């Protein structure tokens, strides 16, 4: 392993500072005792965190986002696991097409998906409904679960399944006792990745939410276009904390580096 020179290391330090600066600044400003956006130079204060908890609209949006992300990620997992098994296990015409279709929301801009869903929901008369917002999220986050489960299913040793099958295990027992435990890291990792993506989604949601179903990122976006105050920093710091907690979980169950850069 050759060493990086001082020039390379200073470049590296600059990149790290660049990547972390906005997040660190948000977390610091959240603790300011002042009324303006400033670094907490004269001591730390929690007043802006208290201010967040007094904003009912933000609290409601937070719960909306949490429930939405939980249910959407679970539904996406329920439909992506069988689809991933179909794609990795069985040969059938249209298999490649289905794989492409299920992964396509990754390359279609969320903006386009947002206006498309808005049109459909408006025609159905259900725009702003929480249920349909949730289905929209399921479409967007299914590819993340699918990718991780496919990767897990490809690595599975089939001989244990064949043994169980020859010993007379039913299809359901086979799945529950043999296949699922083996692909579990992929399923759990996929669920968490889907959860984070649903929780953070703003571009599609902004088109298909009503005031009562607004998610936290949409509420924050709308708030930030109108006013900027330290309360925004406190909300952002809470979001960063929640995301960090989810990422630590994701690291435990699947490995953060595997999620981000694939197998090492």
């Amino acid at each position, binding site marked *: 392993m050759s060493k990086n020179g001082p020039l390379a290391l200073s470049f*590296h330090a600059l990149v790290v500072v660049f990547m972390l600066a906005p997040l660190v*600044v948000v977390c610091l400003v959240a603790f300011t005792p002042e009324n303006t956006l400033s670094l907490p130079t004269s001591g730390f204060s929690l007043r802006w965190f208290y201010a967040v908890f007094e904003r009912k609209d933000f609290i409601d949006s937070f719960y909306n986002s949490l429930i939405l992300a939980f249910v959407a990620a679970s539904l996406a997992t329920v439909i992506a696991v069988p689809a991933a098994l179909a794609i990795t296990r069985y040969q*059938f015409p249209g298999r490649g097409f289905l794989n492409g279709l299920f992964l396509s929301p990754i390359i*279609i*801009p969320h903006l386009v998906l947002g206006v498309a869903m808005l049109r459909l929901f408006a025609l159905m008369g259900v725009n702003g409904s929480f249920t349909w917002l949730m289905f929209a999220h399921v479409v967007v986050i299914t590819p993340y679960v699918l990718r991780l489960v496919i990767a897990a299913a490809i690595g599975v040793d089939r001989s244990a399944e064949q043994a169980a099958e020859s010993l007379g295990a039913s299809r359901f027992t086979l799945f529950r006792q043999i296949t699922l435990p083996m692909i579990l890291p992929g399923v759990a990792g996929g669920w968490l990745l889907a959860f984070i993506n649903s929780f953070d989604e703003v571009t599609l949601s902004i088109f298909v939410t009503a005031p009562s179903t607004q998610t936290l990122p949409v509420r924050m976006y709308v708030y930030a276009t109108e006013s900027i105050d330290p309360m925004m920093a406190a909300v952002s710091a809470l979001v960063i904390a929640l995301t960090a907690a989810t990422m630590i979980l994701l690291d435990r169950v699947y490995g953060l580096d595997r999620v*981000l*850069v694939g197998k090492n």
Partner: protein
Amino acid sequence: MSLLTALRQGGRGYLLSAPALVLFVGLLVLPLALTLVLSFNVFDYEVGVKPGEYTLAHYASLLSDSYFYEIFFRTFWISALVTLLCVVIGVPEAYILSRMGTPWRSIFLILILTPLLISVVVRAFGWSLLLGADGLINQAIQALGGQPVKLLYTPFAVVIALVHVMLPFMIIPIWTSLQKLDPAAEQAALSLGASQAKVMRLVVLPQVMPGVLSGTLIVFGLSASSFAIPGLLGGRRLKMVATVVYDQYLSELNWPMGATIAVALLLVNLLVMLSWNRLVEGRYKKSLGE
């Protein structure tokens, strides 16, 4: 495999993917098709969308109106600049990361890539704290005795925040192709007397090219359709394609025009991706001597 097993296998495949297929047809294919139809619908400011009446007027105004022309041009150059900056920063950074020792390598890789998972609204807000009129950068400039500079609501703010959001998407594919690089090839070149610069140019760069090209594709596509960053850091006047679509839908209420711009964005995006992909594949095959 007998015909019967083949049929049963196929049947199971369809059965297992049926729930996802139903959802994707209903909530992806159908809405996209409806939006395509909507982009041809006649629009009247008094009555709204006229179903059953079709026109090419929206596409004509997209191509002739200098307002839209300017928006598309601005979106294109901002995305191209962001992509270029991501290449210029991402290639050396991924290379430096790959040469680090064991604990540091994964620590820094995760530090640099995890902002990817944090809400883009939060990241945009972080940049507005740094770049605002009385933001930290201007405070630092004033503390050093300089004049405050207008940074927020300029193309500069949009570009720098987009680079921040997109850099992980560039580093990931470059990192992946660097993993396939055999360190022995570099050592062999060095031991045969090649300079470090020559090793970079002749051994490392050709190897990471596929990663750079796929990163370019992702970064350009995501930048061109980015919404929250220009929405929060570009202000009211500095519009990009996505924010214009938003205006057409939610303030002008001219849905057919908004749909037309969205369809054009999707088409341009797919076109760029497919042709770039073809270009990359062609090159890659050639370099492998096939």
